[in-house]
Protein backbone atom coordinates (compact mmCIF):
# COMPACT_ATOMS: atom_id res chain seq x y z
CA UNK A 1 0.00 0.00 0.00
CA UNK A 2 1.28 3.41 -0.94
CA UNK A 3 0.26 6.14 1.48
CA UNK A 4 0.47 9.90 1.06
CA UNK A 5 0.33 11.83 4.34
CA UNK A 6 -0.45 15.54 4.20
CA UNK A 7 1.67 17.60 6.55
CA UNK A 8 0.58 21.11 7.28
CA UNK A 9 3.24 23.42 8.73
CA UNK A 10 1.46 25.42 11.43
CA UNK A 11 2.27 27.73 14.34
CA UNK A 12 2.65 25.86 17.61
CA UNK A 13 -0.52 26.10 19.67
CA UNK A 14 0.99 28.34 22.29
CA UNK A 15 2.21 30.91 19.72
CA UNK A 16 1.15 34.51 20.03
CA UNK A 17 -0.64 35.41 16.84
CA UNK A 18 0.20 38.76 15.25
CA UNK A 19 -0.24 40.40 11.89
CA UNK A 20 1.80 42.86 9.87
CA UNK A 21 1.32 45.14 6.86
CA UNK A 22 -1.81 46.75 8.20
CA UNK A 23 -3.23 43.45 9.45
CA UNK A 24 -3.07 41.78 6.07
CA UNK A 25 -0.21 39.30 6.66
CA UNK A 26 0.46 36.73 9.36
CA UNK A 27 3.59 37.62 11.28
CA UNK A 28 5.78 34.50 11.39
CA UNK A 29 8.47 36.32 13.37
CA UNK A 30 9.51 34.35 16.42
CA UNK A 31 6.81 31.74 15.80
CA UNK A 32 7.69 28.10 16.34
CA UNK A 33 6.22 25.89 13.60
CA UNK A 34 5.12 22.29 14.09
CA UNK A 35 3.40 19.45 12.26
CA UNK A 36 -0.34 20.15 12.42
CA UNK A 37 -1.58 18.03 15.37
CA UNK A 38 -4.33 16.38 13.27
CA UNK A 39 -1.74 15.38 10.66
CA UNK A 40 0.40 13.79 13.34
CA UNK A 41 -2.42 11.34 14.05
CA UNK A 42 -2.51 10.44 10.35
CA UNK A 43 1.22 10.04 10.14
CA UNK A 44 1.25 7.78 13.18
CA UNK A 45 -1.56 5.63 11.80
CA UNK A 46 0.36 5.40 8.50
CA UNK A 47 3.40 4.21 10.46
CA UNK A 48 1.23 1.53 12.02
CA UNK A 49 0.18 0.31 8.56
CA UNK A 50 3.80 0.35 7.45
CA UNK A 51 4.98 -1.67 10.41
CA UNK A 52 2.07 -4.10 10.73
CA UNK A 53 0.82 -4.57 7.17
CA UNK A 54 3.57 -3.21 4.96
CA UNK A 55 3.23 0.17 3.30
CA UNK A 56 5.37 2.98 2.01
CA UNK A 57 4.78 6.51 3.26
CA UNK A 58 5.37 9.74 1.41
CA UNK A 59 4.65 13.00 3.19
CA UNK A 60 3.63 16.10 1.30
CA UNK A 61 3.47 19.79 2.03
CA UNK A 62 2.48 22.66 -0.20
CA UNK A 63 4.67 25.55 0.79
CA UNK A 64 7.93 27.44 0.50
CA UNK A 65 11.39 26.22 1.60
CA UNK A 66 10.65 27.33 5.17
CA UNK A 67 8.41 24.28 5.62
CA UNK A 68 11.23 21.79 5.01
CA UNK A 69 12.21 21.37 8.69
CA UNK A 70 8.64 20.25 9.36
CA UNK A 71 8.85 17.72 6.52
CA UNK A 72 12.22 16.54 7.85
CA UNK A 73 10.59 15.99 11.21
CA UNK A 74 7.99 13.76 9.53
CA UNK A 75 10.84 11.83 7.88
CA UNK A 76 12.54 11.50 11.26
CA UNK A 77 9.32 10.03 12.68
CA UNK A 78 9.48 7.39 9.96
CA UNK A 79 8.07 8.50 6.60
CA UNK A 80 10.10 7.21 3.64
CA UNK A 81 10.17 10.24 1.40
CA UNK A 82 8.96 13.82 1.38
CA UNK A 83 7.50 15.99 -1.34
CA UNK A 84 7.30 19.76 -1.19
CA UNK A 85 5.17 21.47 -3.80
CA UNK A 86 7.00 24.69 -4.28
CA UNK A 87 4.33 27.35 -3.97
CA UNK A 88 2.98 29.53 -1.21
CA UNK A 89 -0.19 27.97 0.15
CA UNK A 90 -2.91 30.56 -0.29
CA UNK A 91 -6.33 28.97 -0.09
CA UNK A 92 -7.64 25.47 0.58
CA UNK A 93 -8.65 24.86 -3.01
CA UNK A 94 -5.24 25.62 -4.49
CA UNK A 95 -3.54 23.45 -1.85
CA UNK A 96 -5.98 20.59 -2.51
CA UNK A 97 -5.35 20.90 -6.24
CA UNK A 98 -1.59 20.50 -5.78
CA UNK A 99 -2.00 17.48 -3.52
CA UNK A 100 -4.65 15.94 -5.79
CA UNK A 101 -2.20 16.19 -8.68
CA UNK A 102 0.53 14.35 -6.77
CA UNK A 103 -2.00 11.79 -5.53
CA UNK A 104 -3.38 11.07 -9.02
CA UNK A 105 0.01 10.75 -10.65
CA UNK A 106 1.80 8.94 -7.83
CA UNK A 107 -0.14 5.68 -7.73
CA UNK A 108 -1.19 6.16 -4.09
CA UNK A 109 -3.90 4.08 -2.43
CA UNK A 110 -4.55 6.22 0.59
CA UNK A 111 -4.25 9.89 1.50
CA UNK A 112 -4.20 10.72 5.19
CA UNK A 113 -4.93 14.38 5.86
CA UNK A 114 -5.96 16.09 9.08
CA UNK A 115 -9.57 17.10 9.59
CA UNK A 116 -8.37 20.71 9.60
CA UNK A 117 -5.20 22.66 10.14
CA UNK A 118 -4.87 24.76 13.25
CA UNK A 119 -3.89 27.92 11.37
CA UNK A 120 -6.77 28.61 8.99
CA UNK A 121 -9.11 25.93 10.37
CA UNK A 122 -10.78 25.53 7.00
CA UNK A 123 -11.53 21.83 7.15
CA UNK A 124 -11.67 21.73 3.37
CA UNK A 125 -8.48 20.26 1.97
CA UNK A 126 -9.19 16.53 2.53
CA UNK A 127 -12.69 16.71 1.02
CA UNK A 128 -11.47 18.78 -1.90
CA UNK A 129 -8.68 16.29 -2.66
CA UNK A 130 -11.30 13.54 -2.71
CA UNK A 131 -13.62 15.62 -4.86
CA UNK A 132 -10.88 16.46 -7.34
CA UNK A 133 -9.72 12.85 -7.72
CA UNK A 134 -13.01 10.97 -7.31
CA UNK A 135 -11.47 8.97 -4.47
CA UNK A 136 -13.68 7.85 -1.60
CA UNK A 137 -13.67 10.10 1.42
CA UNK A 138 -14.23 9.73 5.15
CA UNK A 139 -14.09 12.88 7.25
CA UNK A 140 -13.53 13.30 11.01
CA UNK A 141 -12.10 9.81 10.98
CA UNK A 142 -11.34 8.31 14.41
CA UNK A 143 -10.49 4.76 13.37
CA UNK A 144 -9.23 3.19 10.18
CA UNK A 145 -8.59 -0.42 9.24
CA UNK A 146 -7.49 -1.53 5.78
CA UNK A 147 -7.86 -5.07 4.47
CA UNK A 148 -6.65 -5.40 0.89
CA UNK A 149 -8.63 -2.86 -1.09
CA UNK A 150 -11.34 -2.55 1.56
CA UNK A 151 -11.46 -0.04 4.36
CA UNK A 152 -13.51 0.18 7.52
CA UNK A 153 -13.54 3.50 9.26
CA UNK A 154 -15.30 5.16 12.16
CA UNK A 155 -16.16 8.80 11.81
CA UNK A 156 -17.27 11.17 14.50
CA UNK A 157 -20.75 12.60 14.01
CA UNK A 158 -22.57 15.17 16.12
CA UNK A 159 -23.44 13.33 19.30
CA UNK A 160 -21.90 9.99 18.43
CA UNK A 161 -20.03 7.97 15.88
CA UNK A 162 -20.69 6.03 12.73
CA UNK A 163 -18.95 2.98 11.27
CA UNK A 164 -18.58 3.01 7.49
CA UNK A 165 -17.12 0.67 4.92
CA UNK A 166 -15.55 1.73 1.67
CA UNK A 167 -12.70 0.93 -0.67
CA UNK A 168 -9.38 2.31 -1.82
CA UNK A 169 -8.34 4.75 -3.17
CA UNK A 170 -9.43 6.65 -0.14
CA UNK A 171 -8.90 10.07 1.42
CA UNK A 172 -9.20 10.47 5.18
CA UNK A 173 -9.76 13.63 7.18
CA UNK A 174 -8.29 12.35 10.43
CA UNK A 175 -8.31 13.41 14.04
CA UNK A 176 -7.58 12.24 17.55
CA UNK A 177 -8.70 8.64 17.92
CA UNK A 178 -7.00 7.41 14.73
CA UNK A 179 -4.23 6.44 17.14
CA UNK A 180 -3.82 6.77 20.87
CA UNK A 181 -2.04 9.94 21.84
CA UNK A 182 0.49 7.86 23.75
CA UNK A 183 1.45 6.29 20.41
CA UNK A 184 2.47 9.62 18.86
CA UNK A 185 6.18 9.55 18.22
CA UNK A 186 8.91 11.98 19.02
CA UNK A 187 11.80 11.72 16.56
CA UNK A 188 14.81 10.05 18.15
CA UNK A 189 18.45 10.64 17.27
CA UNK A 190 18.60 7.70 14.88
CA UNK A 191 15.45 8.90 13.13
CA UNK A 192 16.86 12.40 12.81
CA UNK A 193 20.12 11.07 11.34
CA UNK A 194 18.27 8.83 8.89
CA UNK A 195 15.94 11.64 7.88
CA UNK A 196 18.90 13.59 6.51
CA UNK A 197 19.50 10.86 3.95
CA UNK A 198 15.88 10.39 2.93
CA UNK A 199 14.72 12.05 -0.29
CA UNK A 200 12.95 15.39 -0.09
CA UNK A 201 11.77 16.19 -3.57
CA UNK A 202 10.75 19.67 -4.57
CA UNK A 203 8.16 19.69 -7.33
CA UNK A 204 6.83 22.67 -9.19
CA UNK A 205 3.13 23.50 -8.78
CA UNK A 206 0.41 22.92 -11.33
CA UNK A 207 -1.69 25.88 -12.32
CA UNK A 208 -4.31 26.53 -9.64
CA UNK A 209 -5.58 29.99 -8.99
CA UNK A 210 -7.09 30.53 -5.55
CA UNK A 211 -10.83 30.86 -5.17
CA UNK A 212 -10.69 32.80 -1.94
CA UNK A 213 -8.35 35.51 -0.68
CA UNK A 214 -7.57 36.49 2.90
CA UNK A 215 -7.94 40.24 2.78
CA UNK A 216 -7.37 41.14 6.39
CA UNK A 217 -7.19 39.83 9.93
CA UNK A 218 -8.43 41.15 13.21
CA UNK A 219 -7.89 40.18 16.79
CA UNK A 220 -10.91 39.57 19.00
CA UNK A 221 -11.89 42.64 21.00
CA UNK A 222 -10.07 42.72 24.34
CA UNK A 223 -12.18 41.11 26.97
CA UNK A 224 -13.28 42.95 30.08
CA UNK A 225 -12.20 41.66 33.49
CA UNK A 226 -14.00 38.69 34.95
CA UNK A 227 -16.85 39.44 37.34
CA UNK A 228 -16.23 37.38 40.45
CA UNK A 229 -19.14 36.07 42.46
CA UNK A 230 -18.71 34.74 45.98
CA UNK A 231 -19.45 31.02 46.37
CA UNK A 232 -21.79 32.08 49.16
CA UNK A 233 -23.84 34.19 46.80
CA UNK A 234 -24.79 31.97 43.89
CA UNK A 235 -28.14 33.75 43.55
CA UNK A 236 -26.08 36.65 42.25
CA UNK A 237 -24.53 34.41 39.59
CA UNK A 238 -27.98 33.30 38.45
CA UNK A 239 -29.12 36.90 38.45
CA UNK A 240 -26.15 37.99 36.31
CA UNK A 241 -26.60 35.14 33.85
CA UNK A 242 -30.30 35.88 33.57
CA UNK A 243 -30.46 39.66 33.58
CA UNK A 244 -27.04 40.84 32.42
CA UNK A 245 -25.75 38.13 30.08
CA UNK A 246 -29.27 36.91 29.18
CA UNK A 247 -28.12 33.37 28.59
CA UNK A 248 -30.42 31.50 30.99
Amino acid at each position, binding site marked *: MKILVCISHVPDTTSKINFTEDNTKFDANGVQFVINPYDEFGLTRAMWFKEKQGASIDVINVGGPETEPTLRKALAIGADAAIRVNTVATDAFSVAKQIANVFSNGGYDLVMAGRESIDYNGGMVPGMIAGLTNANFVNSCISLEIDGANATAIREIDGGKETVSTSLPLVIGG*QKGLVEESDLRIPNMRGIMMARKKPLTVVEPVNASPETISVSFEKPAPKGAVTLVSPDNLDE*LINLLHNEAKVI
Partner: protein
Amino acid sequence: MSVLVYTESEQGHFKKAALEVASYAKAVADQLGTTVTAVSVNATDTSVLGNYGVDKVLHVASDQLNSFNASAYASVIKQAVENENAKVIIVSSSADSKYLAPLLAVGLNAGYASNVVAAPSGTSPFTVKRPAFTNKAFENIQINTEVKIIGVSNNAFGLVETSGSASAEDFSPTIPGFAVKVESVDKATDKVTIADAEIVVSGGRGLKGPENWGMIEELAEVLGAATACSKPVSDLGWRPHGEHVGQTGKPVASNLYIAIGISGAIQHLAGINASKVKVVVNTDPEAPFFKAADYGVVGDAFQVIPELITKLKAFKAQQ
Protein backbone atom coordinates in the same frame (compact mmCIF):
# COMPACT_ATOMS: atom_id res chain seq x y z
CA MET B 1 -30.83 33.40 -8.87
CA SER B 2 -32.09 32.72 -5.35
CA VAL B 3 -29.87 31.99 -2.36
CA LEU B 4 -29.95 28.26 -1.71
CA VAL B 5 -29.81 26.87 1.80
CA TYR B 6 -29.40 23.26 2.82
CA THR B 7 -31.62 22.69 5.87
CA GLU B 8 -30.66 19.59 7.79
CA SER B 9 -33.22 17.46 9.52
CA GLU B 10 -33.07 14.47 11.78
CA GLN B 11 -35.85 11.92 11.95
CA GLY B 12 -38.03 14.24 9.94
CA HIS B 13 -37.50 17.32 12.09
CA PHE B 14 -35.33 20.29 11.27
CA LYS B 15 -32.29 20.80 13.45
CA LYS B 16 -31.96 24.14 15.17
CA ALA B 17 -28.94 24.80 12.93
CA ALA B 18 -31.26 24.46 9.90
CA LEU B 19 -33.37 27.36 11.14
CA GLU B 20 -30.23 29.35 11.84
CA VAL B 21 -28.81 28.83 8.35
CA ALA B 22 -32.22 29.72 6.90
CA SER B 23 -32.10 32.98 8.90
CA TYR B 24 -28.62 33.62 7.55
CA ALA B 25 -29.70 32.84 3.99
CA LYS B 26 -32.52 35.37 4.35
CA ALA B 27 -30.03 38.05 5.42
CA VAL B 28 -27.83 37.30 2.38
CA ALA B 29 -30.85 37.24 0.06
CA ASP B 30 -31.92 40.65 1.36
CA GLN B 31 -28.44 42.01 0.65
CA LEU B 32 -28.61 40.62 -2.88
CA GLY B 33 -32.25 41.53 -3.45
CA THR B 34 -33.36 37.97 -4.09
CA THR B 35 -35.28 35.07 -2.52
CA VAL B 36 -34.36 32.01 -0.47
CA THR B 37 -34.82 28.44 -1.64
CA ALA B 38 -34.22 25.61 0.82
CA VAL B 39 -33.34 22.02 0.04
CA SER B 40 -34.66 19.58 2.61
CA VAL B 41 -34.26 15.83 2.66
CA ASN B 42 -36.95 13.65 4.24
CA ALA B 43 -38.39 16.36 6.48
CA THR B 44 -42.00 15.67 7.46
CA ASP B 45 -43.22 19.25 7.55
CA THR B 46 -41.32 22.02 5.81
CA SER B 47 -43.71 24.87 6.61
CA VAL B 48 -41.70 26.06 9.63
CA LEU B 49 -38.95 27.23 7.24
CA GLY B 50 -41.25 30.04 6.13
CA ASN B 51 -40.91 31.55 9.61
CA TYR B 52 -37.18 31.90 9.05
CA GLY B 53 -37.22 33.61 5.69
CA VAL B 54 -37.44 30.71 3.23
CA ASP B 55 -39.63 31.41 0.20
CA LYS B 56 -39.54 28.04 -1.49
CA VAL B 57 -38.62 24.54 -0.39
CA LEU B 58 -37.34 21.83 -2.67
CA HIS B 59 -38.47 18.77 -0.82
CA VAL B 60 -36.58 15.55 -1.46
CA ALA B 61 -38.18 12.34 -0.22
CA SER B 62 -36.02 9.26 -0.62
CA ASP B 63 -35.47 6.16 1.49
CA GLN B 64 -32.03 5.91 -0.04
CA LEU B 65 -31.12 9.13 1.73
CA ASN B 66 -32.30 7.99 5.17
CA SER B 67 -28.74 7.70 6.36
CA PHE B 68 -26.35 10.51 5.55
CA ASN B 69 -23.91 10.05 2.71
CA ALA B 70 -21.66 13.01 1.92
CA SER B 71 -21.18 12.51 -1.80
CA ALA B 72 -24.83 11.62 -2.43
CA TYR B 73 -26.04 14.62 -0.44
CA ALA B 74 -23.53 16.86 -2.21
CA SER B 75 -24.87 15.59 -5.51
CA VAL B 76 -28.49 16.29 -4.47
CA ILE B 77 -27.61 19.84 -3.43
CA LYS B 78 -25.64 20.39 -6.62
CA GLN B 79 -28.65 19.41 -8.70
CA ALA B 80 -30.81 21.80 -6.68
CA VAL B 81 -28.27 24.59 -7.23
CA GLU B 82 -28.37 23.98 -10.96
CA ASN B 83 -32.15 23.77 -10.94
CA GLU B 84 -32.39 27.16 -9.24
CA ASN B 85 -29.36 28.71 -10.88
CA ALA B 86 -28.28 29.66 -7.36
CA LYS B 87 -25.06 31.59 -6.91
CA VAL B 88 -24.82 31.53 -3.12
CA ILE B 89 -25.23 28.33 -1.10
CA ILE B 90 -25.52 28.30 2.68
CA VAL B 91 -24.80 25.26 4.84
CA SER B 92 -24.31 24.77 8.57
CA SER B 93 -21.21 23.74 10.51
CA SER B 94 -22.54 20.35 11.57
CA ALA B 95 -20.30 17.33 11.10
CA ASP B 96 -22.41 16.31 8.09
CA SER B 97 -22.38 19.72 6.40
CA LYS B 98 -18.64 20.08 6.91
CA TYR B 99 -18.26 16.66 5.34
CA LEU B 100 -20.27 17.40 2.22
CA ALA B 101 -19.37 21.06 1.61
CA PRO B 102 -15.83 20.54 0.20
CA LEU B 103 -17.21 17.91 -2.19
CA LEU B 104 -19.95 20.30 -3.25
CA ALA B 105 -17.39 23.09 -3.67
CA VAL B 106 -15.37 20.98 -6.09
CA GLY B 107 -18.52 19.87 -7.92
CA LEU B 108 -19.64 23.46 -8.45
CA ASN B 109 -16.21 25.13 -8.84
CA ALA B 110 -17.31 27.21 -5.91
CA GLY B 111 -15.18 29.04 -3.38
CA TYR B 112 -16.11 27.92 0.12
CA ALA B 113 -15.72 29.78 3.40
CA SER B 114 -16.28 27.65 6.51
CA ASN B 115 -17.22 28.62 10.09
CA VAL B 116 -18.47 32.05 9.05
CA VAL B 117 -19.61 34.11 12.04
CA ALA B 118 -21.46 37.09 10.52
CA ALA B 119 -23.50 38.15 7.52
CA PRO B 120 -21.31 39.21 4.57
CA SER B 121 -19.73 42.61 5.16
CA GLY B 122 -20.09 43.20 1.43
CA THR B 123 -21.37 41.29 -1.57
CA SER B 124 -19.24 42.90 -4.26
CA PRO B 125 -16.61 41.68 -3.62
CA PHE B 126 -18.24 39.01 -1.49
CA THR B 127 -16.53 39.23 1.90
CA VAL B 128 -17.18 37.22 5.04
CA LYS B 129 -15.61 36.93 8.46
CA ARG B 130 -14.46 33.65 9.98
CA PRO B 131 -12.25 32.64 12.87
CA ALA B 132 -8.65 31.59 12.20
CA PHE B 133 -5.71 30.46 14.30
CA THR B 134 -8.10 28.46 16.43
CA ASN B 135 -10.11 31.47 17.54
CA LYS B 136 -7.10 33.64 18.29
CA ALA B 137 -8.04 35.90 15.38
CA PHE B 138 -10.62 36.51 12.68
CA GLU B 139 -9.98 36.40 8.96
CA ASN B 140 -11.92 38.49 6.46
CA ILE B 141 -12.02 36.55 3.24
CA GLN B 142 -13.21 37.33 -0.22
CA ILE B 143 -14.81 34.61 -2.29
CA ASN B 144 -13.98 35.27 -5.91
CA THR B 145 -15.79 32.51 -7.75
CA GLU B 146 -19.15 32.97 -9.42
CA VAL B 147 -20.78 30.37 -7.17
CA LYS B 148 -20.07 30.72 -3.45
CA ILE B 149 -20.57 28.41 -0.48
CA ILE B 150 -20.80 29.70 3.06
CA GLY B 151 -20.68 27.43 6.07
CA VAL B 152 -22.21 29.27 9.00
CA SER B 153 -20.77 28.66 12.45
CA ASN B 154 -23.32 27.31 14.93
CA ASN B 155 -24.99 29.88 17.21
CA ALA B 156 -23.06 32.73 15.54
CA PHE B 157 -25.93 34.33 13.67
CA GLY B 158 -28.89 33.19 15.76
CA LEU B 159 -32.50 32.63 14.75
CA VAL B 160 -34.37 35.46 13.08
CA GLU B 161 -38.11 34.94 12.76
CA THR B 162 -40.11 36.53 9.98
CA SER B 163 -43.76 36.27 9.10
CA GLY B 164 -43.31 34.74 5.66
CA SER B 165 -44.50 31.43 4.36
CA ALA B 166 -42.71 28.87 2.24
CA SER B 167 -44.14 27.07 -0.74
CA ALA B 168 -43.07 23.46 -1.14
CA GLU B 169 -42.18 21.63 -4.30
CA ASP B 170 -41.23 17.99 -4.70
CA PHE B 171 -37.75 17.61 -6.03
CA SER B 172 -36.50 14.31 -7.41
CA PRO B 173 -32.78 14.44 -8.08
CA THR B 174 -30.78 11.53 -9.43
CA ILE B 175 -29.20 9.75 -6.50
CA PRO B 176 -25.79 8.26 -7.22
CA GLY B 177 -24.58 4.91 -5.87
CA PHE B 178 -22.86 4.97 -2.50
CA ALA B 179 -19.15 4.21 -2.39
CA VAL B 180 -19.04 4.84 1.37
CA LYS B 181 -21.64 2.73 3.18
CA VAL B 182 -22.89 3.24 6.71
CA GLU B 183 -22.62 -0.02 8.66
CA SER B 184 -23.79 1.20 12.05
CA VAL B 185 -24.52 4.36 14.00
CA ASP B 186 -23.85 4.79 17.67
CA LYS B 187 -25.56 7.87 18.97
CA ALA B 188 -27.48 8.91 22.04
CA THR B 189 -30.52 10.48 20.40
CA ASP B 190 -32.06 11.91 23.55
CA LYS B 191 -29.06 14.04 24.49
CA VAL B 192 -28.28 17.59 23.47
CA THR B 193 -25.15 17.47 21.32
CA ILE B 194 -22.20 19.78 21.86
CA ALA B 195 -22.56 21.08 18.32
CA ASP B 196 -26.21 22.08 18.74
CA ALA B 197 -26.17 23.12 22.36
CA GLU B 198 -26.80 26.69 23.46
CA ILE B 199 -25.34 25.85 26.85
CA VAL B 200 -22.42 23.52 27.53
CA VAL B 201 -21.43 22.34 31.02
CA SER B 202 -17.87 21.09 31.04
CA GLY B 203 -15.77 19.39 33.71
CA GLY B 204 -12.01 19.07 34.08
CA ARG B 205 -9.51 17.11 36.07
CA GLY B 206 -10.49 19.15 39.12
CA LEU B 207 -13.50 16.84 39.46
CA LYS B 208 -11.12 14.11 40.58
CA GLY B 209 -12.88 11.11 39.03
CA PRO B 210 -15.72 9.84 36.82
CA GLU B 211 -17.83 9.03 39.87
CA ASN B 212 -18.27 12.77 40.41
CA TRP B 213 -19.88 13.47 37.03
CA GLY B 214 -23.40 13.02 38.39
CA MET B 215 -23.51 16.67 39.43
CA ILE B 216 -22.22 17.80 36.02
CA GLU B 217 -24.98 15.83 34.33
CA GLU B 218 -27.56 17.15 36.73
CA LEU B 219 -26.48 20.73 36.17
CA ALA B 220 -26.63 20.13 32.42
CA GLU B 221 -30.09 18.67 32.72
CA VAL B 222 -31.42 21.63 34.69
CA LEU B 223 -30.03 23.98 32.03
CA GLY B 224 -30.93 21.86 29.00
CA ALA B 225 -27.22 21.78 28.26
CA ALA B 226 -24.78 19.36 26.67
CA THR B 227 -21.95 17.95 28.76
CA ALA B 228 -18.30 18.24 27.81
CA CYS B 229 -14.87 17.81 29.35
CA SER B 230 -11.22 18.79 29.09
CA LYS B 231 -8.75 16.58 27.26
CA PRO B 232 -7.10 14.83 30.23
CA VAL B 233 -10.54 13.79 31.41
CA SER B 234 -11.27 11.92 28.18
CA ASP B 235 -7.68 10.65 28.00
CA LEU B 236 -8.12 9.16 31.47
CA GLY B 237 -11.29 7.48 30.27
CA TRP B 238 -13.51 9.31 32.74
CA ARG B 239 -15.67 10.55 29.87
CA PRO B 240 -16.13 9.52 26.21
CA HIS B 241 -13.75 11.04 23.66
CA GLY B 242 -16.64 12.71 21.86
CA GLU B 243 -17.00 15.05 24.85
CA HIS B 244 -13.45 16.37 24.75
CA VAL B 245 -13.48 20.00 23.71
CA GLY B 246 -10.59 22.22 22.79
CA GLN B 247 -8.13 22.64 20.04
CA THR B 248 -7.67 18.94 19.38
CA GLY B 249 -11.20 18.07 20.39
CA LYS B 250 -14.55 19.53 19.48
CA PRO B 251 -15.04 23.22 18.96
CA VAL B 252 -17.75 24.82 21.10
CA ALA B 253 -19.67 27.87 20.00
CA SER B 254 -22.40 27.94 22.61
CA ASN B 255 -24.08 30.96 24.15
CA LEU B 256 -22.95 29.87 27.61
CA TYR B 257 -19.97 27.69 28.54
CA ILE B 258 -19.58 26.65 32.17
CA ALA B 259 -16.12 25.32 32.99
CA ILE B 260 -15.84 23.44 36.26
CA GLY B 261 -12.45 22.37 37.59
CA ILE B 262 -10.75 23.24 34.30
CA SER B 263 -7.51 25.23 34.44
CA GLY B 264 -7.99 27.07 31.16
CA ALA B 265 -4.87 25.94 29.29
CA ILE B 266 -4.45 27.68 25.95
CA GLN B 267 -5.33 24.50 24.04
CA HIS B 268 -8.59 24.23 25.90
CA LEU B 269 -9.45 27.90 25.43
CA ALA B 270 -8.68 27.68 21.72
CA GLY B 271 -11.65 25.40 21.24
CA ILE B 272 -14.15 27.25 23.38
CA ASN B 273 -13.27 30.89 22.77
CA ALA B 274 -16.08 31.20 20.27
CA SER B 275 -18.58 30.69 23.09
CA LYS B 276 -20.24 33.94 23.99
CA VAL B 277 -20.41 33.89 27.78
CA LYS B 278 -18.00 31.87 29.91
CA VAL B 279 -18.37 30.97 33.54
CA VAL B 280 -15.58 29.34 35.50
CA VAL B 281 -15.66 27.55 38.83
CA ASN B 282 -12.20 26.80 40.17
CA THR B 283 -10.55 26.56 43.59
CA ASP B 284 -7.44 28.31 42.32
CA PRO B 285 -7.86 32.09 41.92
CA GLU B 286 -4.74 32.06 39.70
CA ALA B 287 -6.21 29.55 37.22
CA PRO B 288 -5.74 31.04 33.73
CA PHE B 289 -9.41 30.48 32.97
CA PHE B 290 -10.31 33.49 35.11
CA LYS B 291 -8.63 35.72 32.52
CA ALA B 292 -10.79 34.30 29.75
CA ALA B 293 -14.05 34.09 31.67
CA ASP B 294 -16.88 36.59 32.00
CA TYR B 295 -18.06 35.33 35.37
CA GLY B 296 -16.09 33.40 37.92
CA VAL B 297 -16.55 31.67 41.24
CA VAL B 298 -13.40 30.95 43.23
CA GLY B 299 -14.59 27.91 45.10
CA ASP B 300 -14.75 24.18 45.46
CA ALA B 301 -16.85 22.55 42.78
CA PHE B 302 -18.05 19.95 45.25
CA GLN B 303 -19.74 22.68 47.26
CA VAL B 304 -20.59 25.18 44.53
CA ILE B 305 -22.20 22.87 41.97
CA PRO B 306 -24.74 21.08 44.20
CA GLU B 307 -25.81 24.43 45.60
CA LEU B 308 -26.00 25.98 42.16
CA ILE B 309 -28.20 23.08 41.01
CA THR B 310 -30.61 23.64 43.92
CA LYS B 311 -30.76 27.37 43.27
CA LEU B 312 -31.21 26.93 39.52
CA LYS B 313 -34.05 24.48 40.07
CA ALA B 314 -35.78 27.07 42.23
CA PHE B 315 -35.09 29.77 39.64
CA LYS B 316 -36.45 27.60 36.80
CA ALA B 317 -39.53 26.74 38.82
CA GLN B 318 -40.30 30.46 39.12
CA GLN B 319 -39.89 31.16 35.40
